[in-house]
């Protein structure tokens, strides 16, 4: 042997890896992020065909030859299947129940139920009536109903439409607030989703937003004399570029040294945080003159994103930018050659490299674009939502929320749009709930993170709601039963022998 020692399993540690598995971002249905281990033989075969079942149960068979034989069988059967497309409806039904949307809905329901439990156990009236629950259960139930009903009615009225308002213009205000909240969530969510699709984990949303806010904000209050659209544009470009560069560091380190982007982006979050803290605490840099608070002066009018629906609503043109970003990312991922390379690198970097795609360059590029999108979110914050000067909490947790948005949205641009609006609604409704019912807004964090946890584990949700499992799992259960049977018969016969 020429000293060559191929590792028995061919596994090569790629860098100081944290997550060996990339998040399986390529999803068949939006809303169903397949977060489990990549499944080599995930078959779209007609589930009722015995072969479909076979493939399902052999997913990780140790013997490659066998799986291959099975696949060949499938391929052989596949040809006639084209003609008889009569099962299409049944297929569609199966997808609807075992597929992404049902699971996403189930996850949301579960999380909301969990949120209700939190509300109930901390509600004063419920607690007050609970001691005499067995004497007068109705009281407790009434209290529970009131607490939960009140909370969710407040949530809805705070997020969508306020029925108590005098006019439609007043009543619709919560919805515009939802969209305002959704604006940076969508942009940052796109940044995280794009990176997911290229097999990269962008946990650095916070840092990228902070750097973007720093750049955009500094120009926004510091540069004087530029007229309206140009000043705004300059701020936007600077913010997006700052976010891109900050994420680009992670991309560059990953490409050059193999440093894992999860660790790098987390560390960069803190570096950005302290950097901005320093700028804000230092007079002459970003601290507002004559103030001891670590806060910037307000943005100049020429740098502010104008309101979209008139000055009585908070909704600003940033929302339109987010929508454009959704379309842009969709085009990039699905219609452009760059996006093709992104996805190829995300799915199989080795094959991408063999096909002449420069994986290092793509990694850097992906992080630049992703950081730019997150940077857009940071820019929208300082130029749209908080224009009166900002402090170091300007990111408002959006960098982390973006991860949940991307996951809920199945890493697809349109999914991110939906998830962003949903979470924007939670945020708006949460504030209303806090104001009206005294329920701490942190409950939104709980519900949000539960949604993502449940969505990440479809078998759990299916088990809870008794949704049909995809062909794989029941089959596996059956084989186990079969085995037990085989084992027991084996023993009894053995006794005879």
């Amino acid at each position, binding site marked *: 042997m020429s000293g060559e020692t191929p*590792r028995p399993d061919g596994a090569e540690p790629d860098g100081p890896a944290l997550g060996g598995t990339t998040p399986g971002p390529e999803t068949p249905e939006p809303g169903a992020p397949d977060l489990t281990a990549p499944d080599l033989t995930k078959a779209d075969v007609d589930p009722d065909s015995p072969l479909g079942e076979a493939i399902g149960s052999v997913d990780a068979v140790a013997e490659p*030859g066998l799986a291959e034989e099975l696949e060949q069988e499938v391929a052989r059967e596949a040809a006639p299947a084209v003609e008889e497309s009569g099962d299409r409806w049944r297929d569609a039904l199966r997808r609807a129940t075992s597929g992404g949307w049902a699971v996403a809905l189930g996850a949301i329901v579960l999380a909301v139920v969990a949120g209700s439990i939190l509300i109930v156990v901390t509600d004063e009236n419920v607690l007050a009536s609970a001691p005499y629950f067995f004497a007068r259960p109705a009281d407790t139930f009434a209290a529970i109903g009131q607490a939960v009903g009140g909370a969710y009615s407040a949530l809805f009225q705070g997020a969508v439409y306020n029925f108590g308002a005098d006019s439609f213009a007043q009543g619709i205000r919560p919805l515009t607030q939802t969209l305002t909240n959704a604006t940076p969530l969508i942009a940052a969510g796109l940044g995280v989703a794009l990176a997911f699709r290229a097999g990269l984990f962008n946990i650095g949303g916070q840092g990228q937003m902070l750097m973007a806010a720093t750049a955009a904000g500094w120009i926004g209050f510091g540069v004087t004399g530029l007229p309206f659209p140009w000043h705004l544009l300059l701020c936007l470009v600077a913010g997006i570029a700052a976010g891109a560069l900050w994420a680009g560091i992670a991309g560059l380190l990953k490409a050059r040294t193999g440093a894992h982007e999860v660790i790098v982006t987390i560390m960069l979050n803190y570096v950005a945080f302290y950097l901005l803290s320093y700028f804000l605490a230092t007079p002459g840099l970003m601290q507002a003159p004559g103030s001891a608070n670590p806060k910037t002066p307000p943005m100049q009018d020429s740098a502010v994103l104008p309101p979209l629906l008139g000055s009585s609503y908070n909704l600003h043109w940033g929302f339109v930018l987010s929508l454009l970003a959704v379309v842009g990312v969709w085009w990039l991922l699905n219609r452009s050659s760059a996006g093709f390379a992104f996805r190829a690198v995300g799915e199989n970097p080795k094959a991408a490299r063999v*096909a002449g795609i420069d994986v290092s360059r793509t990694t850097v590029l992906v992080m630049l674009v992703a950081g730019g999108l997150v940077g857009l979110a940071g820019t929208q914050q300082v130029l749209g939502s908080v224009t009166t000067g900002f402090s170091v909490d300007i990111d408002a947790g959006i960098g982390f929320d973006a991860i949940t948005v991307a996951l809920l949205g199945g890493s697809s641009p349109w999914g991110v749009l939906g998830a962003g609006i949903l979470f924007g609604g939670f945020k708006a409704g949460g504030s209303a709930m806090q104001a009206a019912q005294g329920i701490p807004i942190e409950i939104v964090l709980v519900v949000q993170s539960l949604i993502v946890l449940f969505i990440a584990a479809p078998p759990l949700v299916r088990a809870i709601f008794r949704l049909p499992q995809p062909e794989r799992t029941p089959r596996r259960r059956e084989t186990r039963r079969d085995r037990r049977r085989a084992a027991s018969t084996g023993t009894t016969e053995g006794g005879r022998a």
Partner: protein
Amino acid sequence: MRLELRGITKRFGALVANDHIDLVVAPGEIHCLLGENGAGKSTLMNVLYGLYQADEGQILLDDEVRTFDGPGDAMAAGIGMVHQHFMLVPVFTVAENVMLGHESTRAGGVLDLDSARDRVTEIAGRFGFHVDPDAVVEDLPVGVQQRVEIIKALSRDADVLVFDEPTAVLTPQETDELMAIMRQLRDEGAAIVFITHKLREVRAVADRITVVRHGKVVGEASPTATDGELASLMVGRAVQLTVRKDAPRPTESELVVSDLRVTGADGQVLVDDVSFTVRGGEVLAVAGVQGNGQTELTEALVGLQGSVSGSVRLDGKELVGRSVRRILQSGVGFVPEDRSEDGLVGEFTIAENLVLDRTDGPPFVRRGALQLATRDEFAREKVAEYDVRTQGIETRVGRLSGGNQQKVVLARELSRELRLLVAAQPTRGVDVGSIEFIHKRIVETRDTGIPVVVVSTELDEAVALADRIMVMYRGRVVGIVPATTPRDVLGLMMAGVPPEEASGTDPENEGDVA
């Protein structure tokens, strides 16, 4: 211990991987399980080892029915397995690997490494070789790693030993040494199951042979059977590996490789000053045992290796130092060794995979935008032309069989305007029907007048396709010989013996080498 498998049936859904297989292995016997890839040999052994549960049938040890819920049970019952992909923890020492799972401990669960060291030395000594118990496994050569696997199995007092394709990673020399070990184990009274698809090895070492095909036992054979008899049992029809091709018609085009050296990340020289020339219209087959630098050689040709010195000139143009993309653009077609890892993106559709390396300009990309209509039309054309069996071009490539996947790779590479084709293991894991098709395409490509380099560890394939054969050993070229060179000479060359010497030795002595 006498092992008997009675009517073992293992189904995966509708597919019967093992169909009522009977097998008896007596103590002091090497029983060979012979069959093609995918015949169900490994499934059977995984059933025996407790990794799968049989749907029907029984496992008997010394006439007593046993059931194994996991490898732990099987090992406790005295069954040991030398896995094809070694089941060793690379960063552990030899002693740690050997003791793993049945650690002897002192008080409080503290490892007793000394007793493990002694055990390693003792077992290794029995077979007359030395393994340092404190060496870290990943630093050991593959042959030694395999011995650690054997020691691991023996340290648990295995009476039944299963060797699963153990020679795939060994040189002929190491194979010989392994066989000596197997014989010694047999003589000590172990029952040995030897899984392989290599006929010569079977005849060299087996006491009994059972041939498996499509999950069924199709026959037993004696070690004296000829290759032809065994092969036809194995494959089910007369093997015909000769490829019909005319005499080469050399053209002006040529690939000149001189002093090519590839250095690995840790400084190992993987390809050691290799020089050769391939004329247009000629196939140069690179033969050798796996892991002797062939993979790195092909990767260096297309720019996939980092540390490369020397020169690769295609029609006078230097390729070394260029990016993969530039090399592909200059007309190099590449069929990588591991198609699912390196050749295809499993989650992408057939159409997407067919243009995977063609996204840098027209016709499939214009101004940065994918031309989906053009691409799909192209894909439909190629699917028909290469007879890819599929539902449609939107099928994900990961779902195709090995042969169909390879056709997709080939279709993609051959549909570009080529000046050189480099194909590594073009038919590995491919069904017989597709093999013929792929071979035909490779020969057709040769006949267009470009140089073709084919790497194959299957000597039969190399001989069938080649106009000339280059044998590599430990990163060096042992020799470049005509395709008509006798097999035993090629076999010796694969063990590092220069061609002059190899052809000089008496072929009678080489019966069990190669």
